[in-house]
């Protein structure tokens, strides 16, 4: 177990429950372990979605859960995302804690009304009489040649809507701890899983062999229960030259680019967009005076726009250069031109060079 992980567990005050047993897990295994741990601890946790039952999910994230917990708690659903989320709202009203899977984030749009108008508003409109304590898991993002219907990053659509949390892990360790916290949370949470890094971190160099999580310090994951609080960012790399705000797959692309450039950047892995750890962001940008925002989602009205506005509002007099964004372009995700669209090392390097010259 790395020192960083031990520190985390202790800081969150879960020492009495956190087990010291850790094993290597890739992100899928860590996500599977989070659901396993929570289903074991809480009989109201149920897992549902297309292909999640007997088969264990198209990405295997729910493998073995139906065999272990039975069909009343882990079951396949009809192919209707509206129905999946609507049913999860009703189950939540009954007193269950549903963890529905939307097979790809690109498929979440039929469920938009049930998520935004129902799950996200139920506590408010009933003044707390009814709640929707669901965690919607969904693989998102590109880099797998998924074309425009298996690559999107729709997080900004949901961060715009009041009443729903949006969480995005970047490592196996974070994925498990954040997912446990999301399942325990009494508000609806979207848990977007960066599918490009399910099996290994991705530095953006698509033309080199894929790496696995083997040997990565954050792939050493406790086998038992632990949680990472929602709304707490992680400093992926401390530095003083500039602040780079990112999440999900982009954390790894940014880390590698920064390493290659040899620049002393501070990399903030947001982990959670709503709630947002603005204190960590503000402290970092005030320290470095420069801010680059990197996300894979389209630019206009993307979450980077919100980050840019908030940094400007809080850090204007500390800024040495205009805030910059590297994002997906405002086009559909193009299949054959994936690597021109993807905010990879070239675009991030150019942005860093520019912001350091400004």
């Amino acid at each position, binding site marked *: 177990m790395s020192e960083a992980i031990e520190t985390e567990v202790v800081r969150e005050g879960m020492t009495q429950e956190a087990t010291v047993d850790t094993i290597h897990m890739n992100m899928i295994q860590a996500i599977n372990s989070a659901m396993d741990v929570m289903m074991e601890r809480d009989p109201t946790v*149920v897992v549902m979605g297309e292909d999640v039952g007997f088969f264990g999910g198209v990405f295997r994230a729910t493998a073995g859960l139906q065999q272990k917990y039975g069909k*009343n*708690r882990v079951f396949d*659903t*009809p192919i*209707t995302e*509206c*129905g999946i*989320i*609507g*049913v*999860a*709202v*009703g*189950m*939540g*009203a*009954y*007193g*269950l804690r*549903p963890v529905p899977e939307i097979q790809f984030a690109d498929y979440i749009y*039929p469920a938009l*009304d*049930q998520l935004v*108008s*129902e799950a996200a508003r*139920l*506590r*408010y*409109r*009933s*003044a*707390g*009489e*009814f*709640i929707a304590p669901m965690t919607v898991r969904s693989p998102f993002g590109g880099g797998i040649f998924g074309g425009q219907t298996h690559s999107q990053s729709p997080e900004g659509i949901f961060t715009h809507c*009041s*009443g729903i*949390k949006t969480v995005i892990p970047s490592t196996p360790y974070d994925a498990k701890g954040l997912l446990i916290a999301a399942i325990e*949370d*009494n*508000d609806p949470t979207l848990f977007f899983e960066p599918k490009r890094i399910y099996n290994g971190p991705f530095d953006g160099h698509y033309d080199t062999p894929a790496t696995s999580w083997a040997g990565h310090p954050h792939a050493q994951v406790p086998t038992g229960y632990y949680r990472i609080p929602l*709304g707490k960012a992680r400093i992926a790399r401390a530095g003083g030259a500039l602040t780079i705000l990112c999440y999900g797959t982009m954390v790894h692309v940014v880390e590698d680019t920064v390493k290659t450039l040899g620049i002393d950047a501070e990399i903030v892995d947001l982990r959670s967009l*709503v*709630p*947002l750890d*603005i*204190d960590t962001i503000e402290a970092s940008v005030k320290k470095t005076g420069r801010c680059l925002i990197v996300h894979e989602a389209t630019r206009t009205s993307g979450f980077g726009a919100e980050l840019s506005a908030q940094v400007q509002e809080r850090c204007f007099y500390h800024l040495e250069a205009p805030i910059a964004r590297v994002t997906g372009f405002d086009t559909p995700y193009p299949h054959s031109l994936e690597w021109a669209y993807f905010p990879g090392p070239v675009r991030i390097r150019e942005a860093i060079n520019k912001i350091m010259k400004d």
Partner: protein
Amino acid sequence: MSDPTGSGGMDGQAGRNLPPLRLHVPEPPARPGESADFTHFDIPAADAAPRPDEAAQPGDMRDMAYGLIRVLNEEDAAVGAWNPRLPPETLLRMLRYMALTRAFDARMFRAQRQGKTSFYMKSTGEEAVSIGAALALSRDDMCFPSYRQQGILLARDWPLVDMMNQIYSNTGDRLKGRQLPIMYSAREAGFFSISGNLTTQYPQAVGWAMASAARGDTRIAATWCGEGSTAEGDFHSACTFASVYRAPVIMNVVNNQWAISSFSGFAGAEATTFAARAVGYGIAGLRVDGNDILAVYAATCWAADRARSNAGPTLIEHFSYRVEGHSTSDDPTAYRSAEEGSLWPLGDPIARLKAHCITLGIWDEGRHAAMDKELAELVRDAAREAEKNGILGHGLHHPMESMFEDVFEEMPRHLHEQQQQMLDEWKAAGL
């Protein structure tokens, strides 16, 4: 410009010896100024509908989706296989709850017209749908209503003042003035928070029922939507889930003929019945005279028994008529014949049960008039009580900072900041 369709534009039949295609846009039988004509309605005799076993296979009872379950006949007698044979006290309870619903609606509609609130929706003519179902269900069965089932709350003896506080969005409103009037929520009454987005409650009810079944509970769920919103995807998702998991749920479609200004033809009524939606899903479908409370009651009991014995869901179409406007915000004389309500061939649910009770010798005109007077006073007194907590727009509402509560269980940083910013701005402005 190039022609993107390649059809040659509006007169794009060049070289093709085919008849032009025609688009069918439905049109209701009568518009304002025209006479209503219901002679084409096929109304079966009250004792015509057979009563299948509660465990019948949906495929063996498809005819039920195209017939009409009726109990009260033209002579005001209760007849046929569906007659629930209720004791006098139950009949009179039904009558009283329907009359209470109508009195409540009258009072609150007037309150809206007096400017005491922003909005109201009456259920005039459809009282039997809510009251009949509520009395057939167990008190702890969970209801996922649409916006015109206030009768459920009244039949579950929910306090009138509490409902009115919500309508007035005043300091007594448990929902803290956040919801449009009549969008009640009453967990203790087994009444789910009403959404203004149509038919979202359908899959939610199915989910609740699935949870109840998965946990080995004995409670069932019931939900309601209008015929117009059966067109929503949520309706079809719900039917699929209900069918697949044989969920213990009763799905009610209140066919009141009108969705604001769109007649039922825009939801498919020209082609088939709404109960027939059940056929394709392999769900038991019943079509009921929604203005006959004994039929509604009997059908709901049948569906509840079916659900409780793990025989699966039921879709019930309640054939009725929306006598008033959709809400206080529309004028029905602008889009439909004014004669329709008075000529509705299935009559008025209160008048029909009243006549039945009089025929039975358990009721009379004098007692009915006295009851109406008593109920009018009851709702008047409740309204006065509620108005002590304020009416909309007169300052007696929840404090402005409460706007930020209950968005999440714990108020996150950004909402704290926005709350403080709002208070600071008002303070700076000297307000």
